[in-house]
């Protein structure tokens, strides 16, 4: 699944595409959602905005819809929706919620020191 390109990625309303692919990106992020709920869309938009601002050109976002692939929840131990998983750089970090608190997202992604 890791190599699957983001087919399930819904086009965000602002139409931004991830600038790099998953293999070469320094920041490999995975967003777990369950259906196109407003919260999921909000989360994706928030994530996109943060990445564009802080990680421009170095990130790759993969959106996984658990409604379609419920088995994938097991691999990353996902409980909460939405959950953002930082696969790279190591170690794995998980950020739950709609990512509306930018400050905490940055801390969670170790972009800002705690």
């Amino acid at each position, binding site marked *: 699944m890791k190599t699957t390109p983001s087919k399930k990625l819904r086009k965000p309303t602002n139409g931004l595409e991830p600038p790099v692919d998953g293999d070469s990106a320094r920041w490999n992020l995975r967003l*777990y959602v*369950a259906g196109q709920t407003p*919260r999921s869309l909000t*989360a994706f938009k*928030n994530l996109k905005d943060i990445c564009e601002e802080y990680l421009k050109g170095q990130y790759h976002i993969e959106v996984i819809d*658990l*409604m379609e692939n*419920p*088995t994938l*929840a*097991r691999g990353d*131990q*996902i*409980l*909460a*929706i*939405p*959950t953002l998983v930082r696969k790279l750089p190591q*170690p*794995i*970090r*998980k*950020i*739950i*919620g*709609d*990512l*509306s*608190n930018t400050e*905490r*997202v940055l*801390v*969670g992604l170790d972009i800002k020191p705690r």
Partner: protein
Amino acid sequence: MIRQNSRNRSKPLESLRKERTGIPGFDEITRGGLPAGRPTLICGGAGAGKTLFATEFLVRGATLFDEPGVFMSFEESEEELATNVASLGFDLKQLIADKKLVLDYVFIERSEIEETGEYDLEALFLRLGHAIDSIGAKRVVLDTLEALFSALPNEAIIRAELRRLFRWLKEKGVTAVITCERGEGTLTRYGLEEYVADCVILLDHRVQNQISTRRMRIVKYRGTSHGTNEYPFLLDEKGFSVLPITSLGLAHKAPTEHTSSGVPRLDTMLEGRGFYRGSSILVSGTAGTGKSTLGAHFIEAACKRGEKALFFAFEESQDQIIRNMRSVGIDLERFVKKGLLKFHNARPSAWGLEVHLAVIHKEISDFAPSVVVIDPITNFLAVGDAPETKSMLTRLIDFLKTRQITGMFTSLTSSGTNIEDSEVGVSSLMDVWILVKNIESNGERNRGLYILKARGMAHSNQVREFLLTDHGIELIDAYVGSEGVLMGSARSSQLARERAAEIDRQLLTERKQRELQRKQELYEAQLMALKGQYETERDAILRDLDEDERRRKVMADERLQIARLRRADNGEVQFQGDGARKARKGTVR
């Protein structure tokens, strides 16, 4: 997911359907099992057996009732779980391979998680929903759901989501078991009982006087009657077993056939037939009065008839009992080898009362004996107090009676207390009460046995002396006579005295008879002598008479001679000659 199954909500509930757990005893106290299609809360402290209960619920469901299950674990990994229950003979991996079970380990590391706004636990629902659908699960276990509270920071969200989860589970129609840690003063630490209102079961692991007992109680079971007591349960090599040991009421049958006590003369005292089958017999007495030996006799008699017997020994080991009983001529070992006799030896302090009862129950159910000896019941007082012990024994007696097992209970009466005090206070429960006591008199102790009561029997009211010989117990009539009731050497010496007097009387009679004999002999001798004398005298007289006759004849001859010579008339002379001839003929010569 909710919307998919929402039609279930309007389905009318005729009466509560129950789902059997397959856990021995549990389905009995719940009258059928857990509420089908509803969540049940299992709460208890650490090590109370929650996970095991939940696992067994799933495993038995899959193996006995062909109901697949999902185990969602928040605490132990798949590997750990499989290993933990392997010792109980549950092969989780095989069940998983057979698509009877799905194990899903939910692991959340708090330190990895950052909360950044609103979220829900839809992923958990999806995971669970997927697992349920993948094998068509009917049973679900969530162990321990409360781990969520420590894993996720926002308690309000968790609570809302849990409420939704329980509703969702109901709508899914799965029978769910949710385990919870017991809280301080509340059933669960996070108050989950608020959400799961259908069935709440409390597991408890109590330590009293350093003895631990596991108990279970159904705190709540909506829409059904259930046992409300605390039931002890066991976790052993066969898993979880609940023991619904309550007084089952007094509805047991009363058989009329008899079973021998193993001591022929004791049977004689009981109308010659022994105890009623299925009755309970109390043998009480002070130390060393032969209570255990009576028990051994009882068992020997049963085994000789080919019946099975179970010996619960709380004081001695099996080998010790076998050795000791051999010294009084009772060979129990051969019955053990034949599989007719089973010993269960345990120190009373090994477990709590309830567990003892549970173990006794289990042993009896497994072995199905017709005769049971419990030696002694008074040792249970070391574990529980008198009311507890009495309650336990009541339930045990009821259990034996419903199975028509004849039970013999020995009870040690400590010297100094009233001998007719059965210590545990169970005498009123017993059908037959045999009292063995040391009777102390004339500087010695002797064993006396009497039957204090025997329901439904015209039993002997005598005190018998009883001896332990190398061929078992022998009952002897106590001496009852002018000297009172005597036992032991007093009895023997009294008997000896009586024997001596008897011999004296006999000698006297013999002497008298001999005297009579002598007198008769004397008389006869005298008679002989007299007869001899008479004959002698008679002979002499006859000889004289003869002499006279001869002389007369001679004289007559002479006269005849003279007359012839004188030519005299001879008529008179002729007559005299005839008379002489006649006289001679009468003589005995």
